[in-house]
């Protein structure tokens, strides 16, 4: 039993250490303190869940899918951005490429998004900073968004 406990404890320590290390490598270690309170989610007019940006920072992966539930975009542009982007079509959540292949929409149809990659969500973000304003721990979310938008840019002081 003792050996199992030691093994589990070590595994947990390694897992948490791995998450912490990833967050540090992403350059935004503060994203670890986001506790997903959803204050920012309800304020974003274009329906972005900014917690997703924090998750992308923690995972150091800009390709994770995050909720963007109220962004209007033309299907052709959405397909160009990411064919696997999930859109809302006739009350169904479907990939944009699938919707185009099934003939549900044309490339000139204006659609509403549902989920897209964090890096694409950063591109469509209008940078109004409403999420930053309501964040209870004052996380510099806009910095993360700008970082995702232009990878490799110098961070603002």
């Amino acid at each position, binding site marked *: 039993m003792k050996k199992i406990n030691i093994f589990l404890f070590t595994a947990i320590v390694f897992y948490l250490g791995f998450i912490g290390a990833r967050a540090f490598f992403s350059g935004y270690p503060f994203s670890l303190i986001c506790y997903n309170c959803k204050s920012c*989610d*309800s304020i974003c*007019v*274009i*329906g972005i869940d900014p917690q997703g940006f924090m998750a992308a920072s923690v995972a150091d992966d800009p390709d994770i899918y995050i*909720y963007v*539930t*109220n962004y*209007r*975009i*033309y299907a052709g*542009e959405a397909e160009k951005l990411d064919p696997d982007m999930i859109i*809302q079509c006739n009350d169904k959540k479907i990939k944009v490429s699938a919707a185009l292949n099934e003939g549900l929409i044309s490339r*000139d149809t*204006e659609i509403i998004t*549902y989920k897209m990659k964090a890096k694409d969500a950063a591109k469509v973000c*209008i*940078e*109004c*900073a*409403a999420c930053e*304003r309501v964040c209870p721990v004052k996380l510099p979310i806009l910095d993360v968004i700008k970082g995702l938008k232009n990878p490799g840019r110098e961070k603002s002081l």
Partner: protein
Amino acid sequence: MTPNRYINYFLIIVLITLVIYFGRKVYREIFPGDYPMVTPTAESKFIFGENEIIVKLSATTKNGNIIVYTYGPDGNFYGMLKPIKDLSITIRKGDNADFMVQVYGREIGETSFMKKMDRYIRKVGMYDLLIEAVEKKWNYGVQNCLYPICTRCTDGCKSVVSTSNLPLVMSVMDNGEIKPVFRKGRCPRCGKCIIWCPSGVIQKEKQPWEK
């Protein structure tokens, strides 16, 4: 008076002059920036169809989105954020307003957003409202400023100017648009609104020689 005395006086005067010359503070303006300027919205032409309204624009915006607005029967400002494609916007039946702003003359009251996360709290059809606006001659149009979705300019101004009487206020124009208005005398020319404005509506005022 001996010549030595004159020399001493002369040296003292030269010394004082040198101290004043090298010891003086270099004059610097506290805010050496330029005044901000609000760029006008692109010209628009509304073409009303059976099931859709097409808006032709003379220019696009920095982020490819623009607000289509109309006034409602309650006298409030309703708007939605629309993407621009080939200098045109299409408003179809079923497109709902994203927000509503209470308007009192040129003053702005409370703002409410119609959509929270992925569901509408209140549905206001923009197509029907625009048709009604044309019939009843209410103001409608497009605006490049993303207010009330974005309030970066006023936030930036508040972070610099400590008084409640800000040099930058949002005001309703004659055509119903809501735009930032500056009071030049009070503006410290810090440039924060210019840097923070994501839609590029607020820009550095061009000097006569730059025009």
